[in-house]
């Protein structure tokens, strides 16, 4: 739900608006009555289809009418059409939803209707070069273009990202995952803050690294380099930090974990009150402690507790969390680490 700015209107202005809206309301309600009464009488004609279009252009959120439209196609128009006819009908449905999405990029019903259209596109004849599913392929191939224009308009639109993943999974000729990785690189380089693109990248890389196996290690190194660049560019932006946390994971590779801790400590020298540097250092050092106990453990734990005290000062909104991680609320700022809190720390 999205609201516009609150506008204070005089009673006279409100009255004038209501007068202006009067005929619009009458028309809208008359059209709604007409369409719902045709729906009740199971009118699956072209005329009914046209009326639903007018109504949906006025109100694309009217989910019942999208359902009625599907039923008109399924029970009225498809049964009397050749495969070419069905393909043409769905082409025009897709054009209609393209226009509707441009005007209303966050309306679930439109995205949903578009999926239904795509899934109903007939395979189509074999082409001269022996490719089957020619209609289907042509339609699905176009979808990535459509969704990229939507993501150009709003790179965080989760409807568009979900639709993108859906298209990638469903298209008749699968696209190599490397192309999707390249797409996320472009989106991230255009805006480091776009966590939706970082998220997508984590999914693609998980899948690539699962498949490829051995070559993954070098690629993981490249990835650390890529995210480090983002961290240094804007250490206050949480997107890259959250992604970095995914990349480190459970920190089983001690060398990598220590290297990353070292790198963040370097950044902390430049940005001594960086909340995300401190927060991440606490998290990674706790991983280090959990995975490897040795003679340095106590020192590391002490360092963490120091960082947690700093975090309580520079990030007071989350003070209770830092206190809790540091071993409970009873400890005062300057006290030594008690044995009890030291143990709690390893939970």
């Amino acid at each position, binding site marked *: *739900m999205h609201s516009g700015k609150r*506008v204070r209107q005089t009673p006279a202005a409100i009255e004038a608006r209501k007068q202006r*809206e009067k005929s619009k309301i009458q028309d809208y309600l008359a059209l709604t009555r007409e369409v719902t009464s045709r729906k009740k009488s199971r009118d699956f004609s072209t005329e009914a289809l046209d009326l639903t279009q007018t109504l949906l252009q006025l109100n694309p*959120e009217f*989910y019942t009418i999208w359902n009625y439209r599907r039923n008109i196609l399924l029970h009225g128009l498809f049964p009397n059409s050749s495969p070419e006819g069905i393909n043409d009908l769905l082409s025009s449905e897709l054009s209609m939803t393209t226009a509707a999405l441009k005007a209303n990029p966050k309306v679930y019903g439109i995205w949903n209707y578009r999926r239904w259209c795509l899934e109903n596109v007939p395979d189509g004849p074999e082409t001269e070069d022996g490719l089957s599913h020619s209609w289907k392929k042509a339609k699905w191939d176009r979808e990535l273009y459509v969704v990229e224009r939507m993501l150009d308009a709003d790179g965080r639109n989760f409807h568009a990202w979900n639709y993108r993943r859906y298209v990638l999974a469903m298209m008749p000729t699968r696209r190599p995952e490397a192309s999707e990785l390249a797409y996320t690189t472009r989106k991230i380089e255009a805006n480091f803050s776009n966590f939706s693109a970082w998220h997508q990248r984590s999914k693609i890389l998980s899948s690539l690294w699962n498949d490829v196996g051995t070559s993954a290690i070098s690629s993981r190194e490249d990835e650390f380099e890529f995210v480090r660049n983002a961290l240094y560019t804007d250490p206050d932006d*949480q997107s890259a930090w959250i992604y970095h946390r995914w990349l480190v994971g459970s920190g089983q590779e001690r060398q990598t974990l220590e290297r990353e801790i070292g790198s963040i400590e370097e950044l902390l020298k430049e940005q001594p009150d960086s909340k995300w540097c401190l927060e991440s250092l606490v998290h990674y050092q706790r991983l280090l402690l959990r995975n490897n106990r040795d003679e340095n453990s106590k020192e590391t734990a002490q360092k963490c507790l120091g960082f947690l005290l700093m975090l309580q000062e520079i990030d007071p909104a989350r003070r209770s969390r830092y206190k809790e991680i540091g071993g409970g609320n009873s400890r005062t700022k300057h006290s030594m680490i008690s044995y009890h809190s030291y143990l709690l720390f390893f939970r």
Partner: protein
Amino acid sequence: MAESQLLIPLHVSYIKSLGDSKDDLAYHMTAHLRMNAIYWGLTALCTMGHKDALDRVEVIDFVLSCWDDEAGGFGAHPDHDAHIHSTLSAIQILLTHDALDKVDIDRVTRFILSLQKPSGVFAGDEFGETDTRFSYCAISALSLLGRLSDLDVEKTVSYIRQCRNFDGGFGNTIGAESHAAQVFVCVAALAILDRLEEVDQQTLCWWLAERQLPNGGLNGRPEKLEDVCYSFWILSSLSIMRKVPWIDADKLTAFILSCQDPESGGIADRPGDAVDVFHTCFGTAGLSLLGYPGLVDLDPVYCMPASVIEAKGLRKDWQALHRRLS
């Protein structure tokens, strides 16, 4: 000037006035949300201790007029198709008004279960998209109807589990980005099913706490704008995991109060924006969980008055902030 108090009488009259806007185009353009809007209005009124400000009989009659006899569920408005979301709202309204006996529980249960897909997720309606929001609607509704035993819990949980991301959050489908509202539906659904062990609570509560912005408001995803409705989605999740203190309650309270319309009542998504009943519901719900004085306890799992849920014996082990006296 930002308001320092919740303007209860104004919000009550704002909610009461919503039904009198039939000469407003927006009223008719939002008919597809009418059932939900009545649930939001009624819940906000309950939270403010004015449950009876909307006429009980009128409300129940409206709900029953939305019954879709072909599908066996409730639509959002008379002549609208049955949908799982409006069906949940209908059940919530009727239960709040102690009128569940007016529902054909067997038929509604069949309708809800008919929407489950082989993957375990639920669709919103016959043609509808699938989404963990609808899994929550199904689980909450079945639980309120006393019919959870008809649900294939393993299959249902398995889908939700696959929507979990490395940041501890949940998306609306497998592979989708974590989103605070989806976190609420997944965590609350798992709470109802007594399956909170599926949640990486330390990681998720960290991620949720990081939704609070310097102005006190909460966003729904990293590097996005704040919005009052996330006060509920995030506070409810934190309440279920007993970590409400991980955010700054005073700053969030001040932010929600600053989103009130001090002249005509209602709460908006952000200060200075136009109000609506959705944000009025979730703003007051958030304040209730923050222990705001004078408000009635709200159950964060079902987003209904806590007394109603307790009377059904459905209360889970959540913890909101203690109600302050002043």
